[in-house]
């Protein structure tokens, strides 16, 4: 990677943020509780924070995997550092961003239910499952899980489809 001072310092920041994903979930809710009080907002924030940390981690991986040849190719066409960033890193990897988003949403989707059952106050699917479990309503658990599965798969397929439609060159 071509290194300029700003790139290096921002990549250090990204690496730092990426490491925060090892913070335990309940730890994060503790800090967030100091900022937000509403339970629903809280649920959303926990998910947003987690998703962002994983997202940054995956994006760093994508950037690290850009072959030197692609950067040299741009340089040989007289690209400035900013043009290299724009053409090779940003535009040249936009389809990977959607792919990364899709992978991360899968994790987040799984976490959704967990987060909801930790922060029970706001209700949600997680709470429904928990309650059904308590009242031995197995049929309802199964139904809820199927709903969650189908919605999840739907989002996944949609993003994959969008990537292929938007980026014809994308073969990941």
């Amino acid at each position, binding site marked *: 990677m071509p290194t300029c001072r700003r790139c290096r310092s921002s990549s250090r920041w990204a690496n730092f943020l990426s490491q925060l994903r090892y913070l335990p979930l309940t730890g994060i809710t503790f800090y967030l509780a100091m900022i937000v009080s509403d339970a629903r907002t809280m649920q959303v924030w926990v998910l947003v924070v987690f998703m962002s940390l994983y997202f940054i981690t995956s994006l760093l991986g994508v950037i690290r995997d850009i072959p030197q040849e*692609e950067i040299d190719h741009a340089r040989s*066409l007289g690209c400035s550092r900013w043009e290299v960033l724009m053409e090779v890193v940003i535009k040249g990897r936009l389809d990977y961003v959607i792919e990364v988003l899709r992978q991360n949403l899968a994790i987040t989707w799984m976490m959704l239910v967990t987060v909801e059952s930790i922060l029970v106050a706001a209700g949600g699917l997680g709470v429904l499952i928990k309650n059904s479990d308590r009242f031995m309503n197995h049929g309802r658990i199964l139904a809820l899980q199927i709903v969650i599965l189908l919605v999840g798969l739907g989002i996944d397929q949609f993003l994959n489809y969008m990537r292929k439609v938007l980026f014809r060159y994308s073969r990941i």
Partner: protein
Amino acid sequence: MPKPHYETKSPVLKVEDLSVAYDGKTIIKDINFTECDTVRDGKEQGQTIAFVGRSGRGKSTLFRALSGLEVPTTGKVLVADYANFKGNGDEIPLKAVHEGDVGFVDQKYTLFRHKTVMQALHFAMRKSKESEKEKADKIAAALTAWGLENVKNQYPNELSGGQRQRTAILEQLLSSGTFIILDEPFSGLDVGNIESVKRAFDLICSSHELNTILFSTHDIELAIELADSIHVLGYPSLPGGGHASHGTILKHFDLKELGLAWSGGLNGDHLELAREIKAVMLGS
């Protein structure tokens, strides 16, 4: 066969005392050579310069330095500065090479993965001062001449190897003008593709007298057939026996002077030269 008449004019490429080291390890050292503009009567004649040498002797490293992608550890690479060239008769001024001055096509024919052939060519011409109309005309003409008309709206992953390679060459020609470096342009190509790259060389050389192609290959006969100047890279032998572990130019053959250039085929003298070159390579 009569020796074709030619004259050499001012230098277009001058390499002085070049060395490149990676992490303190010297890869190439003591590289010195000069290539001049060659002029033939009644013909546009560019320069075709080949670099041969066994694997790992530093051909790719030398090319990276020549194209300005790698900053030399010592020495310098000077290329003709046509922008400050006053006109006929004058010596062409030289300047230190900077990335973008020299076209470079790597062995994998790397392209922008998100640009179609057409978009890539327009991008390559983004800095040119011609009008949009002139650019479009030039690109259209080039697409036809290089047989890329039918695939102009396709992305690199939708092109064949040969089409990718031609796009990569064309892109560099439109962007940097006269100099183009090709690292192993013949590797992994079938006979038909090799012919089309040869035609591409012809096209480049005959389109402007100052056009200069530098290429590397492991096919010595092909190098002799196409080039008018051949440099052999290898590890130099040490006085006490054995070899140094950095590459340098061991020998230079000027095929123009030997009367072997531009003959359009191989005869006995060419094959004799091939034997000589191989002997130098094997001893390094």
